[in-house]
């Protein structure tokens, strides 16, 4: 024992392990980001943004490569001849797509009533399958606070959990630790959905609970919206569509819901600033 404590590296390692465990324990609960973490995030965010763009470009290139048809090959040939022109065309097409997405988001935000929001770009995702988080390029400097809901043109994305100076982390609704109070749009039944842990379905799935099973006639295709109960998410935001109904089984799960948001390809989101902040 005495010998192992005389060994400095072992002692340093033990202290580091203990400190990291304490850090993990405290960061697992709701917290305020310390200034060191915020500063590191501020410094690294531009690098992260570039890295994410490069990654997207490379994966896009390979996607196009494997999905090539005769038209794509001909297109590639033309691209070689008219490289400059094609680059401009690509830029234009990217801008049109972005414009369409932003317009859809704006229309969607307009349909939700008078809400204030900040648009943000997704610049990172959590590593592995155990947790579902995304990193955005907006933070405290744009008025973002923990607890604010995040939506996009397709529906509910999640909730801000950690905020740095110019970045924030969002726990998505498909994370298995997240529960959302919802309403079935057609029948107006109130119930809850919860993220399902899945190693095979990366785009995520939700389970629907607490439906009055003897009173409802839930059918596949029913739209699930946020109910606004609990005050965490604004009312009427689309969450998903019922995929499979299990009302007559012993299981506490009443249905399986497919989220309306494609979490694998999400690029721009809106943080609803006038709602749900903790501070």
């Amino acid at each position, binding site marked *: 024992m005495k010998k192992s404590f005389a060994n400095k*590296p072992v002692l340093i*390692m033990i202290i*580091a*392990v203990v400190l*990291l*465990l*304490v*850090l*993990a324990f405290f*960061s*697992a609960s709701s917290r305020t980001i310390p200034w060191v*973490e915020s500063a*590191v*995030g501020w410094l*690294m965010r531009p690098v*992260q943004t570039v*890295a*994410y763009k490069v*990654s*997207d470009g*490379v*994966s896009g290139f*390979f996607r196009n490569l494997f999905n090539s048809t005769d038209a794509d090959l001909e297109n590639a040939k033309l691209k070689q001849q008219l490289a400059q022109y094609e680059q401009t065309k690509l830029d234009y097409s990217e801008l049109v797509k972005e414009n369409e997405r932003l317009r859809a988001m704006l229309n969607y935000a307009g349909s939700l009533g008078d809400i204030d929001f900040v648009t943000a770009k997704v610049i*990172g*995702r*959590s*590593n*592995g*399958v*155990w*947790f579902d*988080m995304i*990193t955005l390029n907006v933070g405290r400097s744009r008025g973002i606070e923990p607890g604010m809901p995040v939506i996009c043109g397709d529906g509910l994305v999640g909730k801000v*959990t950690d905020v740095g100076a110019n*970045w924030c*982390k969002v*726990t998505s609704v498909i*994370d*298995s*630790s997240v529960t959302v109070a919802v309403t079935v749009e057609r029948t107006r039944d109130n119930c809850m959905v919860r993220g399902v*842990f899945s*190693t*095979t379905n*990366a785009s995520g799935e939700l389970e629907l609970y607490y439906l009055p099973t003897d009173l409802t006639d839930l059918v596949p295709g029913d739209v699930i919206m946020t109910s606004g109960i609990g005050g965490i998410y604004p009312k009427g935001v689309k969450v998903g569509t019922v995929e499979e109904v299990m009302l007559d089984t012993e299981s506490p799960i009443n249905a399986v819901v497919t989220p309306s948001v494609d979490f*694998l390809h999400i690029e721009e989101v809106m943080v609803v600033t006038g709602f749900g902040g903790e501070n």
Partner: protein
Amino acid sequence: MRKWLFALSLLTAFFLDNVFLNTANVLGLRPDVTLAMLISLGVLLGPAPAALTGFITGLLADIFFNKIVGLTALTYMLSGLAGGLFYRKFYADNLIIPTVTAMVCSFLKEHFFLIASLLYGSKPNYFAALGYYILPCFLLTGGVCLLIHLFFKAALFKPLYRKEAIKLD
């Protein structure tokens, strides 16, 4: 030069793990490139630099991308240490040691995260997670560690060994 190559390799691993492989993967399966690199570093450089590198890269990954700050840092630091246990105990040419260590560390790391997700209220099906995610990732990480070890030996450490051999002569 060696330091620059080492830093560049580490940055590449960090980028691959935290950005690229999160968007471009098959069925959600991905090797843990940083962990594989840390094991190889541990075997070639010793426990202290590998553990310190693991601590820093893990902490950065946690700050930016992960839910619980400290978990990746802890697992990477211990992985670096595990690789370092074999420092100068085997020939650096031995490929089995880093490969098997990387596989074991990847297996333990995923279990560590599984326990954390359980504590968070998630209810994963253990055998499904083991079959569809943990074991394939364990094999991928081992394979990547083998390639990284070969690269490190050839690109980073061969010149050093040669220099030491000349000195000895």
